[in-house]
């Protein structure tokens, strides 16, 4: 794959460089706020990237993706509350539970199509939300405070702002790299083929369902990782992270940045969360501005910001 010098690739390169250098800027200027904000952005970019794998490449419009944020978060929070603080246990559990949840949800919801698929994924996510609300031992509605971040035997200190930021960034870049490999692999081509024309793929010999389900599980697992990061970032996990509006926000990030573009969700997450931050300083009705913006993007730039900048798809 050759690197093409077009606007979207330049933007991605600049953004990635800026993300790497951000802690330096933060240290020099003493601006801690920006580091906190971007830690959050990077985590949501990872979650949105996993949704993009499913939505953009797999054509599966899941409206329940935030469930995995909560599941990954609760895995960390519950284990911490029970006295198991090691990230070497917490994080694999977070990934495994997310994968298992995705397997169950996927195997049921992928039997439906279109609006029904959207509704059924939404319904399952809401079920997860209410189950979490009912966990009175772990805070119920009020959520669960995590008193100690995951420990990694002194390898890395998650309580150190800079180290934690770089861990999140490494997870994001690792996740995007993984998705890039998947998208161009045999598996990825099959999944994209099924998005394009399922009947055709069946006719040439692919059992489409299995491939879609596998994609669903991979995406859920990656999002579970984002959930583990998010819980550590906020030292807190509550049912609210699984609420359907959160799933909607993840979708907005993907669509805003450019569905089916590798770095689209990252750009989308930055634009969405920075705008949210800026606009909410002026008015609490920031969604009044965000809404029309999204309508404009959807109407006039189908490929989102990335599509607007780079005409060559997957260049």
């Amino acid at each position: 794959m050759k690197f093409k010098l077009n606007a979207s690739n330049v933007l991605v390169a600049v953004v990635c460089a800026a993300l790497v250098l951000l802690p330096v800027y933060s240290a020099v200027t003493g601006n801690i706020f920006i580091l906190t904000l971007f830690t959050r952005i990077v985590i949501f970019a990872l979650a949105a990237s996993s949704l993009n794998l499913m939505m953009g490449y797999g054509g599966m419009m899941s409206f329940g993706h935030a469930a995995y944020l909560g599941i990954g978060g609760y895995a960390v929070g519950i284990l911490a509350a029970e006295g198991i603080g090691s990230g070497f246990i917490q994080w694999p559990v977070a990934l495994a539970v997310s994968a298992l949840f995705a397997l169950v949800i996927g195997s049921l919801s992928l039997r439906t199509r279109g609006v029904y698929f959207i509704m059924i994924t939404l319904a399952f996510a809401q079920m997860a939300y209410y189950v979490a609300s009912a966990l009175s031992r772990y805070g119920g509605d009020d959520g669960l405070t995590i008193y100690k971040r995951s420990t990694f035997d002194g390898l890395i200190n998650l309580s150190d702002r800079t180290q934690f930021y770089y861990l999140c960034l490494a997870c994001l870049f690792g996740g995007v790299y993984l998705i890039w490999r998947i998208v161009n692999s045999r598996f990825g081509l099959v999944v994209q083929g099924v998005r394009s024309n399922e009947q055709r793929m069946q006719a040439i010999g692919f059992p489409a369902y299995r491939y879609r389900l596998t994609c669903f599980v991979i995406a859920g697992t990656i999002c579970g990782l984002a959930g583990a990061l998010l819980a550590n970032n906020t030292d807190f996990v509550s049912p609210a992270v699984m609420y359907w509006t959160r799933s909607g926000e993840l979708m907005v990030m993907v669509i805003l940045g450019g569905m089916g573009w590798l770095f689209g969700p990252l750009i989308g997450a930055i634009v969405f969360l920075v705008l949210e931050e800026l606009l909410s300083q002026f008015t609490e009705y920031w969604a009044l501005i965000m809404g029309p913006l999204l309508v404009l993007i959807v109407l006039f730039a189908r490929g989102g910001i990335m599509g607007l900048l780079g005409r060559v798809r997957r260049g």
Partner: protein
Amino acid sequence: MADPLLRVDNLVRRFGGILATDNLSLEVPRGELHAIIGPNGAGKTTLISQLTGQLMPNSGTIHFAGRDVTRLPSYRRSRLGLARSFQITSLLKDFTAIDNVALAAQAHDGHSFRFWGNARKERHLRDTARAALERVGLGSRADVLVSELSHGEQRELELAVALATKPQLLLLDEPMAGLGVIESARMVALLKELRKEFTIVLVEHDMEAVFALADRITVLVYGRVIACDTPDAIRRHEEVKRAYLGEQHAVTRQGDPIG
């Protein structure tokens, strides 16, 4: 005589009260080009869809290469060597021509739960795909997006995709649909080449093409076989003439091969 490659026995498919396939039996021996004709609504595409497994029959059996495939899903039948082209072009529109064909080759080259290597760099898949494209005359259009190919080229690509699955039997659902005179002639020439190598079941409205190509012709009316014979015999068949009377002009564009 050896077992036929494809054997259909007493196939029945209902849609509500309508019998789309009415106790239909059919045999296609290896090496034959078997055409299926019939007026609109005769149940030709319904039959093809049952043969490929997109649609399940209410009763009856389908044997392919000596095996009962009646209840197999379409991807399993494809693996056994049953390939179809679609009446309404059904390709991966946002993929290039060669990607469409390479995916078909990939489907028949082990499983595709491979997540890491770049599939577009797998030489043998690309070579198979390129060969199939050359075969149908699309060699120079390999890297063009399907949505940018002409209608005629898309019809040819449909064939290339079917060929790349290394089929034993090609089920072609109106490969000539919507083609101009010159494109049709090219398609007929191509089918003449392919029939030397493959067993073909051809559903087609272009009667000139059918009578030029077919070894045997089955005539369907309202889901029933009213005749199955050589082209010459079909031409003289009284019931066939009756069935086509009145519809004739809609069905045959040039010439008038029946009656």
